[in-house]
């Protein structure tokens, strides 16, 4: 078996294994699997043996032909119909055969590379015979269609050949030839009309040929075409030719299989395309809607962002002013913290989820539940649009669940990623910047310098015997308080600005994160993509099969 066929079959296996919700392909899969099994079975026994089946109506002389070919009374013949009820397999000695046990097997030395199967009839009232013949046809590589003047146009035999068109090579054998004119042209014409192409035509009178053989006449002097039939079977069917016949049979079956698949499955491509477009639109709409709905909650309370930034700054604050700011922040966020200490969960504080995520807490994302009825109904609406297109493209409509929970999980994950990732980094980065040593030194410098200068003045005046009045201390204290106040206000204003800008950036980030496709309807999209992938694969394989042929 050449590698190209092996890979082709393996890839077809993957197509045949499809068990998804796309009924168009799922309905084809069993037939495809059956065809593949047959192909594989044929490929594994691409040895040098050629199985030739003698097929035809009752009484045309199949058994007689076998006897004539063997030159011996191998199979029983009779004038009463039907005569043969079990196939006779005439095979070279020592050949390994895979035929049912109850088929009669005769070894003969005249054959080197041929296994000839004499089948029961195709047309009498004994219906089992036809079934056995069909079985024999499935196992053969070359069909010798036997018929005489009476039976060469019988529907019973033709109906066996038609489904095997392109799958099996066959040659015509007109039996019972006599002095009366033959029907070669008529028969071949009709075959051609039905799209069947015979690989040869032989006109024989098996009974007379057998008699001559038994009487010891030399081979090759026979009347009609019997000699050329023997020549065809013994000489022309070289190992090379046998391989070619088998290969062409397999290729015919393969190309037929591919053509059916292509015709039945790939025709649905435009509808699939429509379904995928509908999914994309629904997904994009859903991303926008969920940003509007969820964003409205997440960014509802800007002050929480300031709290979060303040908290980070508090953790890193340095210097005197920093410490003071930390105290100020602690006082300002007291109400929020009190509510978080309460033993009852205080849900509904709109931006709390965001604040919790922004904070360095260990709260996991499962706790983040942003689903709402509004979101749920929007999701169901959008999904129904896509599902309608999918149903029209041939997908089974899932009875249970609409995937809203998965969607919410995906949404929550994305939000959590944004808030914990870039948003939090920005908050921390800003906090770091605002509590950096240079900033702290710069902020501390004025009050410290003022305090040092004032202290130096006090000391100096003390040693020069001048005691400052209380007014001086009040003055110095006021100036120091003003300096600190201005600095704290500035710092607070800067923190507010930083929090505001971080929030704006987070809004943008979230919009980008949700706007990127593949948020909703993931499993539906997977189904459609898989189906589309199958179509692409089938088309590619068909091309490959054609090229191989």
């Amino acid at each position, binding site marked *: 078996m050449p590698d190209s066929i092996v890979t082709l079959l393996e890839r077809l296996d993957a197509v045949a294994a499809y068990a998804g919700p796309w009924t168009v392909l799922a309905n084809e899969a069993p037939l495809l699997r059956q065809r593949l099994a047959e192909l594989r079975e044929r490929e594994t026994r691409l040895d040098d043996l050629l199985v030739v089946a003698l097929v035809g109506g009752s009484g*045309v002389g199949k058994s007689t032909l076998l006897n004539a070919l063997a030159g011996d009374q191998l199979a029983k013949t009779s004038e*009463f119909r039907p005569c043969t009820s079990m196939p006779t397999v005439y095979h070279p000695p020592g050949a390994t055969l895979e035929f049912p046990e109850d088929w009669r097997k005769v070894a003969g030395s005249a054959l080197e590379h041929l296994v000839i199967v004499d089948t029961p009839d195709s*047309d*009498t009232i004994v219906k089992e015979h036809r079934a056995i013949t069909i079985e024999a046809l499935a196992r053969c590589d070359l069909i010798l269609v036997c018929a005489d003047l009476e039976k060469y146009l019988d529907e019973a035999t033709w109906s066996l050949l038609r489904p095997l068109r392109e799958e099996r090579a066959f040659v015509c054998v007109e039996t019972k030839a006599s*002095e009366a004119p033959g029907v070669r042209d008529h028969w071949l014409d009709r075959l051609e009309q039905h799209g069947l192409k015979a690989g040869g035509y032989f006109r024989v009178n098996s009974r007379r040929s057998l008699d001559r053989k038994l009487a010891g006449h030399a081979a090759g002097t026979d009347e009609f075409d019997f000699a050329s039939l023997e020549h065809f079977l013994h000489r022309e069917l070289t190992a090379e030719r046998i391989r070619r016949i088998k290969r062409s049979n397999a290729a015919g079956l393969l190309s037929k299989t591919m053509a059916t698949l292509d015709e039945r499955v790939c025709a649905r491509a435009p509808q699939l395309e429509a379904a995928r477009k509908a999914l994309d639109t629904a997904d994009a709409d859903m991303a926008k809607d969920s940003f509007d709905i969820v964003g409205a909650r997440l960014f509802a309370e800007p002050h929480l962002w300031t709290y979060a930034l303040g908290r980070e700054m508090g953790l890193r604050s340095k210097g005197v002013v920093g410490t003071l700011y930390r105290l100020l922040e602690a006082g300002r966020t007291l109400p929020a913290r009190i509510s978080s200490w309460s033993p009852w969960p205080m849900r509904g504080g709109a931006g709390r989820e965001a604040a919790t995520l922004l904070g360095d807490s260990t709260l996991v994302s499962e706790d983040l539940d942003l689903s709402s009825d509004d979101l749920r109904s929007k999701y169901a609406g959008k999904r129904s649009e896509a599902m309608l297109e999918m149903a029209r493209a041939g997908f089974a409509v899932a009875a249970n669940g609409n995937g809203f929970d998965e969607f919410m999980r995906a949404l929550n994950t994305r939000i959590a990623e944004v808030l914990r990732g870039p948003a939090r980094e920005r908050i921390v980065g800003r906090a770091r910047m605002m509590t950096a040593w240079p900033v702290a030194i710069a902020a501390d410098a004025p009050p410290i310098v003022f305090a040092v200068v004032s202290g130096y003045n006090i000391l100096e005046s003390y040693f020069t015997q001048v005691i400052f009045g209380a007014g001086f201390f009040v003055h110095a204290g006021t100036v120091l308080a003003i300096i600190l106040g201005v600095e704290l206000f500035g710092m607070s204003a800067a923190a507010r600005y930083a929090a505001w800008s971080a929030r704006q950036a987070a809004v943008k980030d979230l919009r980008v994160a949700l706007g990127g496709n593949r948020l909703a309807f993931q499993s539906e999209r997977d189904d459609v993509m898989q189906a589309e992938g199958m179509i692409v694969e089938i088309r590619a394989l068909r091309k490959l099969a054609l090229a191989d042929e």
Partner: protein
Amino acid sequence: MNPSVGDALAGFESALNRLRRVLAQEPDLAQAVFEDTADWSDLLTYKLVPHLAGQGCLVAAVAGGTNTGKSTVFNLLLGRSLSPVVNTAAATCHPVLAANGRRRTESLENKLVPEFRPRPLDNATDATNHAVPADALYVVFEASLPDHLVVMDTPDVDSIDKQNWEVADHLRAAGDLLVAVVTPEKYKDDRVVGYFREALASGRMIVPVMNKANPAEGFAAARKQLDDFCNDVGAADAVRFVIAHDLALANDFTRPIAALDGGPDLRRYLETLDVPAIKERVYRGTIRHFAERASIFMKRAREIGAGMRRTVDSFENRAHSHALRYDPAPGPEVGNLFHEFVQSRRGVVRRSIGKTSAAFVKGTSTVGRAVTGAFRRRATLDTAPRTDAGQWQEMHRKVIEQIVREFAAQCIDMARNTPAPAGPIVLRAFETIDMHAAIAEVTRETLASENISEDFRQKAMATLETWWQDHRGKRRILEGLDIILAIMPAAIAAPFIATKGVGAAEAVAALGPLASQFVTRVMEYQFGDALFDFLTPWRREQQALLERALRERLTAPCLAKVRVLLEAFEGDPMIDLNRYLDQCLTRS
């Protein structure tokens, strides 16, 4: 023959043709329904109906497999070459009828074999010309035939040219007696045996002729083969004839066809048959066979019809259950409706006090709204005003669209899982219908009124009116509460205004609505059980509207074809068929 049976049969045939015409638009379905009906509906056309016209002439048809020598037997019967004998198979594709003067005229006038177009055989090879239309019947004059015998040559019954089968089937129905031409090769063939078995079952007489027989040992082999054939067909007592295999005599048509057991030859045998007796038997057999097969047909047709009815019903039920998913809410201000109603019952005094109160609340609430608004904006980025009627309508539109789409998707799924014949028809309709237009139509029809809140308001007011009349006790409580409601804002505002105190506006803004809300809740509680009632009828009405729209716009167009077919199955063609069949059975 009984003429009333004739009427019944004619009625049956015309009803059958009507059914056939209706089903012709669905070839698959027609095939499922009319499968295996060819033989007995042929009987109806070719034998029963014309037979009742009463002709005393035996129609003997020579039939058999391809290339068995039917034309040879035909020629041998007539003693001369009339039908061309060709060595290739399936040659004769048009029947040839031989008759003497009177019968020839009759057959040319289309009395003997209806439905065929008779024409004289001018050129001997016409019967093998495939270019001639399939319904041609060639008639030749044969003076030697007696008045009561007509002989026909027929096409084969088993070759790949299936149109020949059809012609042979028609002729089997038209004949009274079949000369079964078999050969040592074909006497066991399924198609051949089946053809004659069917003929026997429908009352035809069979005369087997073994052509190309082996004459050795006094036709011993042929005897056994013919016995086999007769047993398989079921005509064990038929008189058998043989023609020896002799190539030399192939073109000699003057030989007699000898009986196997030494009786008169075939031609003589046919001439001496008791025609009325055979005709009678054929007629009885035909009627019996016809009735038997027609009953089976009717049963199957009824089953198919019932299956289609089930399909239609299941789609209709689904429309119903999907419509029930629509749970319309009349709008955000339902609670106020009730309030409004009670207020509309106010007397002059209460109304004027109420108006003053409302003016206080209204005049001051701008401040109140500004204050609460500021808080609210802090809590949400969604600064859009509360849903108004238009938005409410829009929400409903979306909900309905979703229901319709889900319904359509499930219908497609259901159609896909519905077995043939109804399933594929419905599925095709669902796949080709303009779904978006249908959805838009359903939505438009369901939301027919401009403003469903307004629509609901009128209906609710009517319900409330009835309730008001029926519940005197509760009415009093409500009226009492309403007095409080009317007076309260004014009563709260008055002291502040009187003392010209600061914050009068804010106090009324905060307290007035709060108090009103409280009293309103108390009132609604009093009214609670009725609240549900006045929603229900409206809700049902909306659901019915949706269901009707779903049926009209989606299921009806998609089931249209099935319905037409169903009408045929449940309507007069089927009823007529039943009636006429009963008449046939009782009268014959």
